[in-house]
């Protein structure tokens, strides 16, 4: 039961913290920033967002989506809200 819960939790939510420390942007090789909603990894160095699906980071370069300014602000606001609520 504990094992199932842990697996479901991982599948449903965002990035495992240890994993987010290991991974870098596949193109720039710079650090990635975690975004909880939607679960994704942001490469600020090139302005690209890589999705998480079922707990698995999708870091094939063609999985990336270029963030335009509005999306960058939304991701930043979400990160700021999260920081303020702690």
């Amino acid at each position, binding site marked *: 039961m504990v*094992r*199932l819960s842990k*697996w479901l939790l991982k*599948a449903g939510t965002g990035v*495992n913290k*240890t*994993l987010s420390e*290991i*991974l*870098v*942007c*596949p*193109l720039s*090789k710079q650090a*990635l920033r975690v975004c909880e909603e939607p679960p994704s990894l942001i490469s600020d160095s090139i302005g*690209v*967002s890589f999705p998480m*699906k*079922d*707990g*698995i*980071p*999708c*870091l*094939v*370069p*063609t*999985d*990336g*989506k*270029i*963030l*335009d300014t509005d*999306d960058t602000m939304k991701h930043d606001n979400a990160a700021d809200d999260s920081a303020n609520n702690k």
Partner: protein
Amino acid sequence: MHSLQFSVPLLPTSRFKRHSVRCASDRQQLFNRIAPVYDNLNDLLSLGQHRIWKRMAVSWSGAKTGDSLLDLCCGSGDLTFFMSEKAGADGKVIGLDFSKEQLSIASSRQYLLSKACYNNIEWVEGDALDLPFSNGYFDAITMGYGLRNVVDKRRAMQEMFRVLKPDSRVSILDFNKSMQPFTALFQEWMIDNVVVPTATVYGLAKEYQYLKTSIDDFLTGKELEKLALDAGFSYARHYEIGGGLMGNLVAAR
């Protein structure tokens, strides 16, 4: 939001006499299609021998307790699980593949097999030609039946070299492109008369016909050793196993 699109160069159709699985996208789709029967076919076609070859590959990698390990082109995770047993609870293993379907199966197997040490595994969808890891991170790397399928083998070797720690090893298992006429003939006979007919039963004849083309296009043991040395490895040795049908390249940084 705009998607990142990388254009695949168009090749003149007059060069092809048969369908070729040329670009990375074609190969990705192929591995997505065979994912549901991949493990069963491996067992059937190698009479279970593939597990022995994979254990040998892991031994050659030098993986040990507490290590940070990478299994490239992990597919459904066979090598990743063996690496996980080596790394233990204090180690970490990343299984990377570009096929979502294969990773989904790997992740399900991790849950179903439920060995405690498998908690040290993380799955990542990624490209062997653009690894999402910083320089010098891993203590050992394995790659099983993957190098033959990447579109740029030189670049794949360079990326493996980049993410390896100094004095560490990569162990690459694959079909052997034999220079012995009898072995090459036997290998071709096996594919034509055993592999493809078996795959046909599963509706995957075309996908497994790709195997013969990919071995034809692959490098010999000597060429693989040179590829590794050109990428910067200080030592490279190719071992023939499985009666010469399979080969394992071991390269040290």
